[in-house]
């Protein structure tokens, strides 16, 4: 299992198992799925104990949207580790710092000589600020209704993707600025968690009066990092996809 890995297009239909094993596996999976379905049907569903508790404590959480309250207050530890998971992938993908004076370079530069199609340039001039505005709105509204850091980060990363696809802007990930932007979310989250420990005596416990504000600070930092990491993943993977093609030409 997992030994004959392929990634060439011509091998797309290859299977790891001989035909009889495929049928046997299919049969086993169907039987197990039916058994699983059966076990779900015969067993009941627990009363929504946590829904009640969350609604009860919502007032003390600093936000009005219960999902945001769970993500950033009741179970904020999960979200902290989730940002750490993103950071792991970001560091793995992050290109090495080059020896030339990278520290001085700007994170996002428009120095490329490509001349943009005027329609595209005009569209970008509208689209990018709009996406950032929408991201900001999603972040802000997360406190009251569906929305929040991840959604906002995804939309803002979309603005970056549009910029990088248009071809004029380049994101330089080996710069110090890029490293700080990527780490900001986790760093601010830990800083707030530890300062909470000093204020209230318990790690990750927000003082009730400042909860809303502190959550917003954490969310803004998380949004910046999530947007940066998603953009990093896109541009780096795209560069790797393009690289061999350029080499062959």
């Amino acid at each position, binding site marked *: 299992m997992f030994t004959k890995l*392929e990634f060439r297009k011509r091998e797309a*239909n*290859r299977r*790891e198992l001989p035909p009889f094993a495929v049928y046997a596996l299919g049969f086993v999976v*169907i039987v197990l*799925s039916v058994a699983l*379905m059966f076990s779900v049907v015969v067993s009941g569903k627990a*009363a929504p104990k946590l829904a*009640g508790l969350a609604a009860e404590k919502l007032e003390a959480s600093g936000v009005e949207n219960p999902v945001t309250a769970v993500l950033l207050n009741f179970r904020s530890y999960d979200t902290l580790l989730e940002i750490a998971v993103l950071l792991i992938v970001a560091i793995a*993908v992050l290109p090495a710092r080059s020896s030339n004076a990278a520290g001085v370079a700007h994170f996002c530069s428009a120095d490329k000589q490509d001349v943009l199609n005027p329609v595209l340039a005009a569209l970008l001039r509208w689209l990018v600020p709009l996406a950032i505005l929408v991201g900001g709105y999603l972040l802000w509204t997360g406190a009251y209704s569906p929305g929040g850091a991840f959604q906002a980060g995804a939309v803002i990363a979309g603005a970056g993707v549009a910029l990088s696809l248009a071809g004029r802007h380049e994101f330089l990930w080996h710069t110090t600025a890029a490293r700080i932007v990527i780490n900001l979310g986790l760093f601010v989250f830990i800083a707030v968690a530890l300062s909470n420990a000093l204020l209230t005596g318990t790690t990750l416990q927000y003082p009730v009066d400042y909860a809303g504000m502190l959550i917003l600070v954490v969310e803004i930092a998380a949004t910046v990092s999530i947007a940066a990491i998603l953009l990093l993943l896109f541009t780096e993977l795209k560069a790797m996809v393009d690289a061999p093609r350029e080499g062959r030409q």
Partner: protein
Amino acid sequence: MTQDLLYNATGIALFGIGVFGAIVAAHIIRKLIALNIMGIGVFMVLLATARHGEITDPVPHAMVLTGIVVAVAGTALCLWLTLRIRLLDDVNEGDPQR
């Protein structure tokens, strides 16, 4: 109740399809898609769990959001590794050892 069953059945079916695909397909992209389908199956079951008539339990929703982010991270890392291997192979094109 029917809705709940429908969601669960779909979720379990997606999970099963994902497991099958992840084991059978040899192509890495197919394996990754299969794994993501498995993930969606789990999320379907969680969403069905969240709904209790008029009351909605926010905890499974939060779990799904966290799960999505983790899935994105895992998928990206696998794709990155695949591309690294492809780049290495392109450099050593014709190398019998690869």
